[in-house]
Structures are given as structure tokens and as C-alpha cells.
């Protein structure tokens, strides 16, 4: 068997392993992938923005939890790159969490405050965009207020307590 024949056989073998692994792992088994990024075009998206709040906003009752436009966000910009924080990690937590359990809240908090304290209270927004005619409508909803004393979830996102869940049944 010459080099070309041996090489193509090896590539064929790897291709079979590649296909089996991506077929059984939803298209991803690094470094193998079917590369589905941007394959679903036009769907509404959900990302995140973080705002730095004045220190007196540590009291969650002073926060407005209503959905707003980008021009009316509370606080000041809090860029993540200078803090060494990955934007996609925050956005994934915010967009993919359906039920804000204590573990989820702690996981998002740890991105900002694992083994360190916060410089000031931070308000994490969920930003949603959808196509409206020939433009994109963007709205932001506060999700979580992080302070050095604790984490405060938007009351409208709180999971139902066992008591209310049972009463709902």
C-alpha cells in the first residue's frame, strides 16, 4: 500500500468516527463539528448588557425592573472586556436560563464575583431583538442586581415557590 492509499484510508476512518460522534452529540464533539453557527437566520435573539449602578442602589427596592429601550437603561456602561469577562458567557446565562434557581443565580454571580468583590452594584439586563418590518426592535429587561451583599432577581422572573406551585395545582 502506498502513502496515498494509506492516507486516504486513515482519513476515511477518521471521517466515520467524526460522523458517529457528531451524529450522537447534537452536531458537536470538539474538534469535530457540523458547524451550525448562524444556520437559523431571522429568529428573535436574546443577549445581555451589564450596567454599573450607584452604590445606593444596593437596595433592590430602588431598582426599576421594567422593560425599557436601549436609550433608557439605568446606570452607566460596564464594559466586560477590561474586566476579563467573556460576553458570551453572560449572554448564555441570561438567554438560556428558563428557571432562575439559586444555582443559576450563583453561577451568573460567580462570573463577576468568584473569589473577589464587586467594585459597585451591577445590573444585568436581558436584551431581546426581533425583526419589525425593515428594522430591528430591541428591548431590555433587568434580570439580576448583583451587590456585595447579595443577588436580587427581577421579581417577575422568580420561580414559583413550592407553596404557590402547589396552590397553582
Amino acid at each position, binding site marked *: 500500500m502506498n*502513502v*496515498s*492509499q*494509506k*492516507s*486516504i484510508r*486513515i*482519513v476515511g476512518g*477518521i471521517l466515520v468516527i*467524526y460522523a458517529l460522534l457528531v451524529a450522537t*452529540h447534537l452536531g*458537536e*464533539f*470538539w*474538534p*469535530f*463539528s*457540523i*458547524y*451550525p*453557527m*448562524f*444556520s*437559523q*437566520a*431571522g429568529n428573535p*435573539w436574546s*443577549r*445581555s*448588557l*451589564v450596567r454599573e449602578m450607584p452604590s445606593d442602589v444596593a437596595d433592590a427596592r430602588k431598582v426599576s425592573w421594567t422593560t425599557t429601550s436601549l436609550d433608557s437603561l439605568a446606570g452607566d*456602561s*460596564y*464594559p*466586560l*472586556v477590561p474586566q*476579563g469577562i*467573556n*460576553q*458570551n*458567557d*453572560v*449572554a*448564555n*446565562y441570561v438567554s*438560556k436560563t428558563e428557571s432562575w434557581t439559586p*444555582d443559576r443565580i*450563583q*453561577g451568573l454571580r*460567580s*462570573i463577576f464575583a*468568584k*473569589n473577589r468583590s464587586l467594585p459597585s452594584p451591577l445590573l444585568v439586563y436581558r*436584551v431581546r*431583538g426581533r*425583526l419589525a418590518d*425593515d*428594522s*430591528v426592535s*430591541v428591548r431590555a429587561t433587568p434580570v439580576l442586581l448583583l451587590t456585595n451583599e447579595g443577588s436580587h432577581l427581577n421579581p417577575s422572573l422568580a420561580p414559583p415557590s413550592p407553596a404557590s406551585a402547589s396552590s397553582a395545582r
Partner: protein
Amino acid sequence: MSSFIKTLSQELFTVGKSGTRGDRIYFRVVELFLLAYAVWYCWTWGMYMQENITSVLLPLGIAQYIDVSFMFENYFGPANAILVGVLGLLGFSRLWRPGYLFALFAFHLQYVARYSLGEISHGSNLIGMGILGLGIALLAFRSETNRQRFTFGFLYFFIGLGYTSAAVCKLIGTGITWPDGHHLLMWIAERKIDTLSKFGAFEPSILQELVLADYRFGTLFLLIGLLTEAVSFGMWWRRYRYLVVMMVLGMHIGIYFTMNIFFHASTYFLLLLALPWNRMIDAALAAAEDVSIPLPSQPPSRGEPT
């Protein structure tokens, strides 16, 4: 089918004159590039995990079978990065031929731990495929020339397949309307939020301004991108190889200007694969030798007019 496979194997793995100094230098440069990027990825991921991650949100790859949360504490992440470097160096120096494959396993572990928060990043996939190709080449072939032939053929095959697969996914996921410029409007708005979140400010590029002014420019850009991805398997054939890799490289630059996403590792790696660097090195070495060899001085012969 068998004649196609035979032709494909010749296109991917049979090269003309090989084993020149340019070939050897080029191969080692590519190898060093892959190793350096692997270690850099693993180190930055390791430090990030130590500082920012406490729990697994989305288990990927091997994390579906083992709990990788131990990687988030006690500096296991940075230690694993050092392990990748040591194993990679054993492969690079040819002291231990399985070195690259074991490095790839540790690299995989680092990836699934780092991206356990839900993001599926594709920025490092080509580097991982490169380490896999090198690992197999070292185990399957004894001669450096054959290792080089295999590695490059392997890379062109799987890179071409990957980009074409991306085009197929778009056509399956959305259909023939995928290049509609409105979709690019949506992605630009999404990237604006990401850029605001990362840097606190967003300034649209010229290409983005064009799309925001008229979505039909977006249709044009998306169509070019989709067609480029669709024909990427053309890099399997030597005749089209450099042209197709250059087109994919151009597509990445277009993605950067329209969507603010820079796949740096893939872009630099494609630049290494998009030109016949080995031939250019040979030519440069030959030119340098021509310059450095002094012409013998010839004394004037008798009878020659002075």
C-alpha cells in the same frame, strides 16, 4: 466511487517534488503555529475557569460522561494547559510519538470545561483538527516527508468539508432564503449589543452602514458568504486549492467587517494554508545562496586588451 476516491487520494496526498528545505521549514512552522495556539488557548481558558466559572451549564463532548467541574478549582485548568504544552513539545521534538494525540485529549478536556456555560465556540476547531492531523501523522508514518504529505492532505480535506458542511447547515436550518439581507440586519443589531457589552461603545463599519442603509447590500454579502462556504470542498483539488482557501480567508475578513467577529486562529491558519509558502521559502533560500556565493575573480588572460 472507487475512481473518485483514487483521484481524491492523489489530489490530497500526492505532491510533486517534495522533501525540499522549504517543505521541511514550512511544515515545522505550521507545527509550531498549531502547538503555540493550542497552548495559548489552553492557558487562557485555564485562567478564565479559575477566575470565573463554578458550574457546568451545558456539558459538551466528554463532559457528558464525566463531571468536569473539578477543572474550575485548585488551578487544575492552568496545570492542564502546562500538560498540553509538555505533551505537545514531546511530539514536536519527536521524543514521544503519541505526544500530540495525548495533548489533543487534554486540549479537549480544557475546551469542554471552559465552554460548559452554554457557548459553543468554533474558534479553536481548526487548531484542534491540526493537532489531530499531526498526532495521526506521527503515529502512522515514519518519514517526515510522508508525515507532511498526510498532515496537509488531512487538513485540506477536513477544513473543506467543515466549511461546506456549514453551508449545508444554513440551507437546512433556514432554507434558500438564508441570504435575505434582513437576516444580516438582525445579526448586526445583535453584534451591536455584544460590542456595547464588551467595550461600552459601538461604531458601525462601512459595510455595516451600507447594510443598515439598504438591506439589499446584506443580501449580496450573505450570498457571497454562502457560495464561498458551499464551494469550500474545492480545496480538495490542487488546481483550485489556493484560490478556494484564499476565498475562505476573504470570507472571514468579510465576517469581521459585517459582524464584528474575528476568528483569529482560523484566519491566521488559513493564511498559512492559502499560499505555497514552501515554494516561496525555497525560492528565498536559493536567492540568498546566489547572493552569498561570490563569483570567482578571473585574472585578465594574456593577450586580452587591458
